[in-house]
């Protein structure tokens, strides 16, 4: 009996801990979940220094968010009358509800940050060239979906923070030319944030956007494999090309028949040497578990010690001073607040310039950049190659600018959107008693 159980266990589990390279390759094919992965992965892609494993971290966060989100759905009521109370219940009366909600919140904010950093990594290593351009585009879509998920989730607690952050956010959307007003009208289900808005944001948040994100995520992963792995692979290939191994003098096939020497086309299939690679199972799978554990521990640690913000119940009659958008939109709020221009009799609202035009241009530039990039292909798969110096510098400056604007918005802006430097006394918001 025991022996049979052991045998059964071995039958189920063998693919997770293959005994030989051959078993490992077979496991990839046989196991539905391992099926995601290539049979072999390059050592360059396994390196901590190359990818920083940000994509895996983002996926881990999304997994945590899905599980905690489904749990939260059992307790949350999407009604303007009961939403706030159901969050208070989670905070104070549901067993583990506080940690659950905190983990959802911190993982969500972490995901926005990690997805952004992942994109920065891909940019700095130039890993969006050639066939990878399509996946870059999917990545931009994933970034957008992540931001929209965070934004729709923001309204659900129905507290002052939620209500006014979404007021600011949807008014930025209104400034979009032609479609802005209609878009906001559709998003809110009216002209004001009310029950219809809450329900729309809820359905978008718990079903629509996650579904879109899951599909795009799956495609993103599939494309990584179709593109031959991470960009780091290209760097190895380029190295091999620069210093070709002594090849036996032979003939090679080319378009015009047999020619002496070798050609790139022929090299390409044999460029990666056996020692460049390791089997994915268990090397990659183990690493993914490790990254997941690190991410999970980080979010759990934050959730135990820091409570997700929850202010007073939403009150459309009282705007908190200052009313701030969520931090990942605060840089837009900063722009919106300072880009209204007057040209003669013409006034262009900052909501349009800073809220739509500038981020819109940034987004379009991001999306089409792979097709505009003129740096040599040999720069792909390395950090900060000299041939990409200029565009990397521009990207760094843009990143720093955004981070600075976020820091200013989150930490320095006080009542009436004035700047308060650290140490400067801030006026205390007056209270009733």
């Amino acid at each position, binding site marked *: 009996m025991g022996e049979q159980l052991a045998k059964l266990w071995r039958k189920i589990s063998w693919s997770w801990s293959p005994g030989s390279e051959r078993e490992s390759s077979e496991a990839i094919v046989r196991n539905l979940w391992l099926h995601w992965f290539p049979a072999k992965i390059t050592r360059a892609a396994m390196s901590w220094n190359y990818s920083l494993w940000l994509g895996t971290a983002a996926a881990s966060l999304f997994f945590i968010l899905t599980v905690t989100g489904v*749990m939260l759905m059992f307790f949350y009521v999407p009604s303007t009358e009961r939403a706030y109370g159901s969050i208070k219940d989670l905070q104070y009366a549901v067993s583990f509800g506080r940690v659950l909600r905190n983990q959802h919140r911190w993982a969500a904010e972490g995901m926005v940050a990690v997805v952004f950093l992942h994109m920065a990594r891909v940019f700095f290593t130039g890993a969006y060239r050639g066939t990878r351009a399509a996946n870059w585009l999917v990545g931009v879509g994933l970034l957008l979906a992540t931001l929209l998920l965070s934004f729709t989730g923001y309204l659900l607690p129905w507290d002052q923070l939620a209500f006014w952050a979404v007021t600011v956010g949807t008014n930025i959307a209104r400034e979009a030319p032609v479609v802005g007003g209609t878009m906001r009208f559709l998003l809110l289900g009216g002209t004001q944030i009310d029950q219809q808005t809450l329900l729309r944001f809820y359905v978008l948040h718990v079903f629509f956007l996650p579904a879109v994100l899951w599909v795009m995520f799956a495609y993103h992963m599939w494309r990584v494999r179709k593109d031959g792995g991470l960009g780091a692979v290209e760097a190895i290939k380029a190295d091999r090309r620069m210093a070709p191994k002594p090849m036996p003098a032979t003939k090679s096939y080319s378009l015009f028949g047999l020619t002496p020497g070798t050609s790139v086309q022929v090299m390409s299939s044999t460029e990666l040497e056996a020692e460049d690679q390791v089997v994915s199972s268990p090397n990659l799978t183990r690493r993914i578990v490790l990254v997941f554990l690190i991410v999970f521990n980080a979010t759990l640690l934050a959730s135990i010690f820091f409570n997700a913000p929850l202010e007073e119940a939403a009150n459309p009659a009282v705007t908190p001073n200052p009313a701030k958008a969520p931090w990942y939109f605060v840089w837009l709020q900063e722009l919106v607040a300072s880009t209204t221009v007057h040209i003669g009799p013409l006034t262009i609202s900052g909501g349009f310039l800073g809220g739509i035009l500038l981020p819109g241009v940034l987004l379009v530039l991001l999306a089409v950049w792979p097709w505009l990039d003129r740096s040599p292909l040999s720069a792909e798969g390395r950090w900060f190659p000299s041939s990409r110096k200029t565009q990397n510098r521009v990207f760094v400056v843009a990143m720093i600018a955004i981070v600075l604007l976020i820091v200013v918005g989150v930490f320095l802006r006080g009542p009436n959107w004035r700047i308060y430097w650290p140490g400067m006394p801030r006026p205390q918001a007056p209270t009733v008693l």
Partner: protein
Amino acid sequence: MSAADKKNVPPTDTERRRVLRLLGKGSVVAAFAAQIGAAARAFFPNVLYEPPTKFKLKRPEEYPPGFTFDAAHRLFVVREEDAFHVISAVCTHLGCTVQWRENEFDCPCHGSRFRPNGSVISGPAPRPLSWFDTRLSPDGFLEVDSAVDVAPGFRFVPPKGQA
């Protein structure tokens, strides 16, 4: 095994490492199990949003003689002269609300019939209708505890001057 392959076999797979691996895997499994347990615990509400089982009805003198149905609390207040008792209107079969018809309770769902004292005449109901503990609240209202059943035949007579 060739010399090159030997290089790849970790030479340090010692007893200590084996124990650590086992403990590590054990921790992860235990932590996940604990989290599943925690999730399960969360589904048992710590607070209920339900009306209390003990509640006040009207003042005794407000009830006419005979059977008075209270839809909010799903019960009948029965008054005979100055004596009161309270019978549940919840059918003991599957929980529908029974209706008072002249001289018996009829259940609309599956046809159970009960005598005025709650005992079953016919139909699928397995038990007689419950009788609830009844008393007078300090401020003079009939007070019922639907969590406490009393034997059929129970009568509550409010002190003189109350009914």
